[in-house]
């Protein structure tokens, strides 16, 4: 019955090292403190990536973690977000010439609220910033986003969006789609012709993304 905590993205075009570097400023601004690193490994039949339980190492430096991960198929980093006293985990794995990536939070981050921010606002803004900084064309969170180390594919999501079923999926839900995958005119037409859940809100972000989210309350 737990709050969903898993976020998936389209693949990053570059190495694990450059993917981690892309969000250095964001992590600094939000006062992320690295605590541990762990190994991700492809299963023997290359069917899926797995988290290696007994590979955890304490570290406070991404550089050190990357050095240790030189021979690994992927790397998971555990951070304490000291600005809100919560935990976030970043996952990166090698996938052909790209890097697959995912993000996990503790169960309280999606509900975080403060005197200045309504519940969920911090999480929504964080996901928007992370997606933009990574240059991902897609990101998604919610009950339809199971825990798996697989990059998001555009076609199944766009199909569900175009037939309207995605707009009525169980909440919570968060979906960011780059304009290059779906024009603003087509999005407007989808929203005109299909019913959506009343708590699912749409806005267009200046950085070139459609955002459908129910996270902020």
């Amino acid at each position, binding site marked *: *019955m*737990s*709050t969903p*905590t*898993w976020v998936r993205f389209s693949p990053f075009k570059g190495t694990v090292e450059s993917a981690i570097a892309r969000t250095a400023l964001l992590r600094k601004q939000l006062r992320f*403190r690295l*605590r*541990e690193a*762990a190994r991700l490994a492809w299963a023997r039949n290359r069917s899926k990536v*797995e*988290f*290696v*339980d007994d590979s*955890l190492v304490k570290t*406070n430096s991404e550089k050190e973690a990357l050095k240790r991960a030189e021979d690994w198929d992927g790397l*998971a980093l*555990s951070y*304490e977000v*000291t600005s809100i*006293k*919560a*935990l976030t*985990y970043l*996952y990166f794995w090698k996938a052909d010439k790209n890097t697959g990536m995912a993000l*996990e*939070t*503790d*169960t*309280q981050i999606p*509900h975080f609220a403060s005197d200045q921010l309504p519940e969920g606002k911090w999480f929504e803004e964080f996901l928007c910033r992370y997606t933009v900084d990574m240059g991902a064309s897609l990101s998604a969170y919610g*009950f339809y986003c199971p*825990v*798996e180390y697989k990059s998001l594919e555009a076609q199944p999501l766009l199909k569900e969006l175009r037939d309207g079923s995605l707009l009525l999926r*169980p*909440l*919570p839900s968060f979906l960011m789609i780059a304009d290059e995958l779906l024009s603003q005119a087509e999005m407007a037409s989808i929203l005109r012709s299909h019913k959506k*859940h009343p*708590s699912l809100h749409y806005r267009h972000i200046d950085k070139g993304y459609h955002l459908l989210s*129910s996270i902020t*309350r």
Partner: protein
Amino acid sequence: MAGKRKPKDTEERCPRTDPEAETLCEPGTHSERLYYPEVPPDEWHPKKRIEKMREAGADRFEIEAAEYDYAEGDITHGKQLSRGLTPQEEGHGQSQMILAVCTVCRQKREIDQAPSPDRLVEAKDQEARFGGTNQIRNNRRMAEQNRDVTYKIPESQLHQRRTDTLREFARVVGIPSKS
């Protein structure tokens, strides 16, 4: 007069004088207490609570585990089951989650079922990830503090390597799938 000395990174910092030093306890070192949600009277009966879990979009395994535990007599009141919010409640409803809150660092985490404040049950697919590993560390700590910890997992996962780790400190029960 000597100025204020900046602490070295390796040095223990005091949270009373240095806000940056206020940090979460390490996973597995919390001192947690369980808190139950305020459950509407029409969900006091576990069957009604399970119906609401369905409405809230709980996954099939969580529902099956709750039904199994109700049939076994472990669950006798709706408040012993956590649930998400239903589509009608989204946006304004009060949380319906059982929470474990650390009395030292105040970190909160969700617990799936708690038949009593000293008994907790996690009912989930054991997907390997950092969050799951930290949950295991925290639940192991609970067990060390004489709490009764049970994992209800799909019967198909009973022979996985991760399940052996759970057996070191918890009772592990396989829930047969209805499908």
